[in-house]
């Protein structure tokens, strides 16, 4: 790997204008010298490990005053516990707080800044990983939820969603949609879709703080396990849905004609078909919202409404590079980017297999504009 790394790095650096490098390195050096020069002139003090000696607190202070410059301790994970009962300063870990690293230099454009171009490579071989990356239970809470019977409680699941989803069977992969296992041997037409069974991750419908949890805790024996909604509404048509949209001759001549009329090569209008029904619109809305994860957004970004527009392919997949922010409101200007990023991730992720939209009405949904309003997702 060393070689590859070296090679890759050299390539990367080559892209940077040489002048920038020289200037950057020079400046960095200068700044770094200014900041750390002192630290390098003196030898780091040898590290004393856990010497417990009786010294007065004055001596302790004095000693600390002397040790301040270079911080010699690299082993930071497990500082020695102080001896109980010993009124003796512990000399193990460095006391001096003089910023150890001191300001690591933030050199903005010092790294070649253009994102490496990425050719869209072939999709990952359709073999879905067996490793569910996700599955570990919400273990983040280091325990000790006081005296509450876990069974009678709506657990504060890791995931908050508009509807509660029960914990899936253990061997079901977590995905953004519920999906039934498909029969692999059905037909050879099904190319990519040897679908393993998936389920959406367990969710709850609201944030339950420890305090609230306690509130509703043992009061009534009926402490109802809250939402027992049927977890998985099977999504019906994953397999057959591979509409191999071969345009009919008629269609193509329409397109040709239209192209001619417009003088462009752009493919345009077939008969638009009737407008989408409310149900059809809902399907798209539901499809996107399953992936609209605002859990990692700042409180500010959660105040930000973004309107995002994009194009769809005929198989109802969003065109990634067509996704753009039309407008934003609320929040601060800086939060719009994160709000947009989250919206874009939602559109792409849940659209990866194509949205559930009627193909015959393509022209009704060729262009989509979605308003993402996090008002309901804020902490109340």
């Amino acid at each position, binding site marked *: 790997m060393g070689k590859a790394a070296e090679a*890759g790095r050299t390539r990367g650096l080559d892209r940077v204008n040489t002048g920038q490098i020289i200037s950057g390195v020079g400046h960095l050096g200068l700044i770094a010298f200014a900041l750390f020069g002192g630290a390098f002139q003196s030898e780091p003090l040898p590290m004393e490990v856990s010497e417990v000696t009786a010294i007065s607190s004055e001596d302790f202070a004095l000693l600390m005053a002397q040790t301040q410059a270079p911080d010699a301790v690299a082993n930071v994970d497990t500082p020695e516990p102080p001896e109980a009962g010993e009124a003796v300063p512990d000399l193990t870990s460095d006391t001096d707080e003089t910023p150890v690293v001191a*300001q690591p230099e933030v050199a903005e454009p010092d*790294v070649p800044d253009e994102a*490496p171009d990425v050719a869209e490579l072939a999709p990952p071989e359709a073999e*879905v990983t067996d490793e569910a990356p996700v599955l570990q239970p919400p273990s983040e809470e*280091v325990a000790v939820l006081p005296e509450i019977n876990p069974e009678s409680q709506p657990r504060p699941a890791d995931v908050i969603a508009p509807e509660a989803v029960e914990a899936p069977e253990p061997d079901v992969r977590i995905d953004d949609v519920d999906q039934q296992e498909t029969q692999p041997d059905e037909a050879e037409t099904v190319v990519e879709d040897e679908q393993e069974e998936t389920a959406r991750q367990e969710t709850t419908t609201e944030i339950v703080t420890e305090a609230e949890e306690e509130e509703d805790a043992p009061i009534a024996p009926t402490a109802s396990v809250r939402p027992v909604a049927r977890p998985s509404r099977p999504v019906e048509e994953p397999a057959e849905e591979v509409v191999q949209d071969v345009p009919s001759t008629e269609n193509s001549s329409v397109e040709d004609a239209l192209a001619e009329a417009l003088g462009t090569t752009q493919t345009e209008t077939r008969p638009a078909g009737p407008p989408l029904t409310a149900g059809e619109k809902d399907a798209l809305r539901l499809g996107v919202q399953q992936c609209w994860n605002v859990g990692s957004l700042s409180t500010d970004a959660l105040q930000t409404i973004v309107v995002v527009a994009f194009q769809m392919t005929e198989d109802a997949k969003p065109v990634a590079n067509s996704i753009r922010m039309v407008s934003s409101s609320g929040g601060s200007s800086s939060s719009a980017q994160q709000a947009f990023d989250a919206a874009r991730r939602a559109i792409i992720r849940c659209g990866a297999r194509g949205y559930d939209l009627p193909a015959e009405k393509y022209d009704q949904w060729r262009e989509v504009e979605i308003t993402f309003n996090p008002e309901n997702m804020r902490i109340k």
Partner: protein
Amino acid sequence: MMKHVLTLLAAFLIGATPVAAQDSQPLKIIVDQGVIEPLPFAVPDFVAGSSASAEYARNIARVVSADLSGTGLFREIPSNAYISQITSFSSPVQFADWKAINAEALVTGFVNVDASGKLVVQFRVYDVFAGQEMSQGLQFVGTPDGWRRMAHKVADEVYKRITGEGAYFDSRVVFVSETGPKNQREKRLAIMDYDGANVSYLTDSSSIVLAPRFSPSGSQVLYTSYESGFPRINVLDVSNVARRALEGQDGTMSFAPRFAPDGRTVVYSLTRGGNTDLYTMDINTGASQRLTNAPSIETAPSFSPDGSQIVFESDRSGTPQLYVMSSGGGEATRISFGKGRYGTPVWSPRGDYIAFTKQSKGRFHIGVMRTNGSEERLLTASFLDEGPTWAPNGRVIMFTRETAGASGASSLWSVDITGRNLRQVATNTGASDPAWSPLQN
């Protein structure tokens, strides 16, 4: 022939603007429901520039990952799920491989020890599904023994880019380390990184120390010490642990100090003749000013970030409640009205919330409310939770939790202001009275 007709038809359709315009209208929908879950990310070990930097490359990636996961806003995808590895920092990322394991964010990095012995860390953050880098790559340079701080800086940058929230990992916490039985607790001041690493001690345990508080720059710590036999406020220089007692008068006790944003004014409680009121003092000149004058207890003052107001605790109504007044003193407005007793209010560094301790029905809670007292929300509940302190970005709160009984012990906990992600902060001894530093530079 057919084609011509169609051309005409098409031309007609286009000419008939109302219809055509309608057709080209995008489909508009509103999404106002979503999910709140940790964002899955991957931080493969950083690429090492040499064998000398291999360990740093690995350790820095681990700390970055721990920082992000620790927020509760992110969830790391374990490396055994990876389809492809990052072996070169500047080669194009195979987004498809990361999409396939549902990594929504990917952090790659390169670590090297340069000729002068300095540690150089470069990193990039990718939005995997968008197939784009989020903002630009960055580089940090520092001394190798400061690798942990550099890792925190990287994590801060990643966190900011994805969440839009301010940074907080590169920060420290001063607290009271506790050992010994409940009735003979030994207490000494200690300081550590926000994640519990790098602990060092600032005082010995020869006298009781309480409630340390950072100065706005993080270079000084105010705390209450019984060194004189009576509670007095000390100020301690973090860099060399030199300390001195603030001016005080015989026959009085002073405690509950906090700095004003100006870094030289200290607000605190002073008790004389059994009555506790609030005062400010200029830390350099020792000149003090009385802010309250009531027979009730006034304590636990905390400045608003702009320095114009002080929130504090008073039992003038009969039970301890929270009040806000101008930083020069004068009339105070009560802001807590729920059932129970309120204490230790702390103004958020963002200025939007006040965190507090609430005692109700024999339990203790950490909660937050708007600065006018509205939107009160309790985040925790236990036998004894108290003394909230804010992360520099105003998003996370750390506090003391003490367990009941003869073997009761104190520990530090943190919780997101949403009430999620409650977790214990690792400390080697019992620990109480945490105070979060500002972000280091």
